[in-house]
C-alpha cells in the first residue's frame, strides 16, 4: 500500500524525462504559432483546450487567416484517434477514479498514458500518481508553448541537438516493461512494427499508429493459447 505522498513523488520522478522531452517542442510550437500570426493568448487557449502536441504542431503548420476551421478540426480528430485505443486500455485500470475519469480523459496524453500503463504493470494507478503526471505535463506544456511565442526563435533546429529523439527514446524504454516473453509479446511487437512502418510509408496522415496497433492486437488474439473455452465450460470465473 502506497501513501499519497509516495505516489506524488513517484509521479514527479516518472514525469520528469517526458517534461524534459516535451518542453523544447512546446517552445518550437510557440515560435511557429507566432510566425503564423497567432497571439500568445491564442497559443495559451490552444494548449489548454486541445492539449495534444503533435496535432497542435500540425495545426500551426496548416494555419492560415481566416483559420480553416473544418480542416483543422478533422486533422485533430484523425491525428488524435490513437487516444481512443489508449483510453480503451486505460479505462479499466482507472475505473476507481469515478467521475474524475472524465477529467483524466481530458488530460490524457501519449506520455501520461504510457507512464500510467507502465505503472499499472507493478501496482494500481492511484489518482495521485495519474494527476501528478498529467497536471505536471499540462503545466509545462502551457508555460513552454507561451514562452515559445516570445523566445522560440532561439531553438529553431531541435534535431541538430538530438532533441527530437527524446520522445522515441522514452517510448522504447517504456515498451521494454511490457515484455512478457517472446511467445506472448514477440508476435505483437513484430506485427505492430511491420504494419506501422508500411502504412507510414504508403498512407499519408496518422493512420499508421492505428493500423500498427490493430495489427499488434490481432497478432495477440491469434497467437493466444486457447484456454478460455475450457474454463467457461467448467463454469469458473477467471478474474
Amino acid at each position: 500500500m502506497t501513501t499519497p505522498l509516495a505516489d506524488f513523488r513517484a509521479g514527479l520522478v516518472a514525469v520528469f524525462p517526458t517534461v524534459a522531452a516535451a518542453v523544447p517542442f512546446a517552445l518550437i510550437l510557440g515560435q511557429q504559432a507566432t510566425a503564423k500570426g497567432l497571439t500568445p493568448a491564442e497559443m495559451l487557449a490552444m494548449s489548454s483546450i486541445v492539449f495534444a502536441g503533435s496535432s497542435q504542431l500540425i495545426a500551426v503548420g496548416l494555419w492560415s487567416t481566416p483559420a480553416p476551421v473544418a480542416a483543422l478540426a478533422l486533422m485533430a480528430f484523425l491525428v488524435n484517434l490513437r487516444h481512443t485505443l489508449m483510453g480503451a486500455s486505460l479505462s479499466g485500470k482507472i475505473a476507481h477514479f469515478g467521475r474524475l475519469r472524465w477529467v483524466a480523459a481530458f488530460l490524457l496524453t501519449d506520455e501520461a498514458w504510457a507512464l500510467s500503463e507502465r505503472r499499472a504493470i507493478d501496482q494500481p494507478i492511484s489518482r495521485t500518481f495519474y494527476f501528478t503526471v498529467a497536471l505536471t505535463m499540462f503545466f509545462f506544456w502551457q508555460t513552454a508553448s507561451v514562452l515559445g511565442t516570445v523566445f522560440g526563435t532561439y531553438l529553431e533546429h531541435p534535431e541538430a541537438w538530438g532533441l527530437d529523439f527524446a520522445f522515441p527514446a522514452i517510448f522504447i524504454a517504456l515498451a521494454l516493461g511490457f515484455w512478457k516473453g517472446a511467445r506472448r509479446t514477440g508476435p505483437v511487437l513484430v506485427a505492430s512494427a511491420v504494419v506501422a512502418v508500411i502504412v507510414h510509408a504508403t498512407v499519408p496522415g496518422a493512420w499508421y499508429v492505428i493500423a500498427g496497433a490493430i495489427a499488434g492486437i490481432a497478432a495477440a488474439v491469434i497467437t493466444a493459447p486457447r484456454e478460455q473455452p475450457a474454463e467457461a465450460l467448467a463454469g469458473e470465473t477467471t478474474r
Partner: protein
Amino acid sequence: MTIDPVNFAAILAMGALTYFTRILGFLIADRLPKSGPVRVALDALPPAVLVAVIAPIVMSGPIEAAAGLVVLLLALRLPLIATVAVGVAVAALLRLAFL
C-alpha cells in the same frame, strides 16, 4: 493579448474532437466483455501502440536506427532519464558526424 473569433472557433472545434477521441476509448471499454479474446486484445494494446508510434521513427534512417538500438540496450540497465539523455546525445553526435 487578443483572440480572433475565427481562430478561437478553430481551437474549440479541435479541442472538442480531441476530447471526443479521449473519452471514446473509455465509453467503448465500458461496454466490452472483460474476458476472452477482448481481454487478450486489451492486454496487448499498450505495447502494440507504443511500438506503432516508435517503429516508423526508428526506421526513418540509419542514425535513428543506431540511436534506437543504443536506447534499447541501455534501457535494460539504466533508469529512464539516463537512457533518454544518452539516446539524445548519441543521436546528436551521430548527426554531427554524418550529416
